[in-house]
């Protein structure tokens, strides 16, 4: 039986990355924009990158659970559309901090708020231009061993502990010391 805690996909240049590419620690997160646990983890994870900018980087991939969170898939597409205009992380943060308002009108308002070309945003969302990206992330999540949202991998090992700064830092230390 396979060890389900080992990330099997590679991080690539196409991934959304917060922090420096040469960071020795990569935290890969599979998230759902309508999931409150992901919203709660956001400041913690971003805080870790801010605290250890030379060591830790955060990579975000989409894993919307539409069954539970019907707005999540389109929100993911909105983040990709923002990313195509160079503003992924701004949209990511806006979506998580406005999690209760994820109707299309809201997504459009956020696009305007963060300074996107809204007409282009509209066209691309209507055409579901970025749906393949979201689906590709979802498939990679299945292969990597997503077991809920957020699912976190620290240098390729799934982290199932508390979504708290101290606990995650301890796990980061273990992984970098080769004990993970």
């Amino acid at each position, binding site marked *: *039986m*396979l060890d*389900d*805690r080992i990330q*099997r996909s590679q991080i690539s240049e196409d991934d959304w990355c917060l922090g420096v590419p040469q960071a020795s620690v990569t935290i890969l997160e599979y998230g*759902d924009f309508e*999931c*409150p*646990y992901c919203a709660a983890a956001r400041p913690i994870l971003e805080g870790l990158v801010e605290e250890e900018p030379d060591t830790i980087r955060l990579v975000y991939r989409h894993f919307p*659970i*539409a*069954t*539970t*969170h019907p707005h999540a898939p389109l929100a993911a597409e909105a983040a990709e559309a923002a990313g195509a205009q160079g503003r992924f992380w701004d949209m990511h943060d806006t979506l998580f901090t406005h999690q209760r308002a994820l109707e299309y009108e809201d997504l459009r308002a956020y696009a305007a708020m963060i300074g996107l070309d809204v007409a282009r945003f509209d066209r691309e969302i209507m055409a579901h231009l970025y749906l393949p990206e979201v689906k590709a992330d979802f498939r990679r*999540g*299945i*292969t*990597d*061993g*997503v*077991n*809920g*949202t957020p*699912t976190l991998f620290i240098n390729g090992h*799934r982290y*199932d502990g508390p979504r708290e700064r101290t606990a995650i830092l301890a796990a980061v230390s273990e992984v970098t010391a080769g004990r993970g």
Partner: protein
Amino acid sequence: MASRPQPDTPAIDFALPDGEATPVKLSDYHGKNVVLAFYPADWSPVCTNELSLIQETLDEIHRHDAEVLGVSVDGHWSHRAWARQQHIRFPLLSDFWPHGEVARRYGVFRDQDGTSERALFFIDKSGTLRDLWVAEDPDIAPGLNLIFDTLERIAPAAPEEAHHA
């Protein structure tokens, strides 16, 4: 430690009520692959719990000609209400009375708290148990890769149907 069924033995048949109190037998699924998913309890506070992840990927599971049966010691009324809340459309079976009897037979009953372990049993179309997984920590859900890797091994997926405009 309760003994567990071993792979390549006939899966133990059982009859348990579903959320509508309709008896469901494992042998009803002869001819289909079955993922038998034991879990400790309904009403997990986590919104994206194991069963909602399974529900989200159910179409993909069906491509392996497989069905999922969830089993916990909760009563059938609990299953009915929780399945509705979570939009779970595969059967949730009630191992309530005799308490945890099916979990016991599968070697996954927890004497310490009267629930079942979080476990997956993979049963093929002939009713043979082909593989199993039991969580080291019942609070940690299995990665979806466990389910799909195992199904790919025992029941490779049919190619996706072409979609016509």
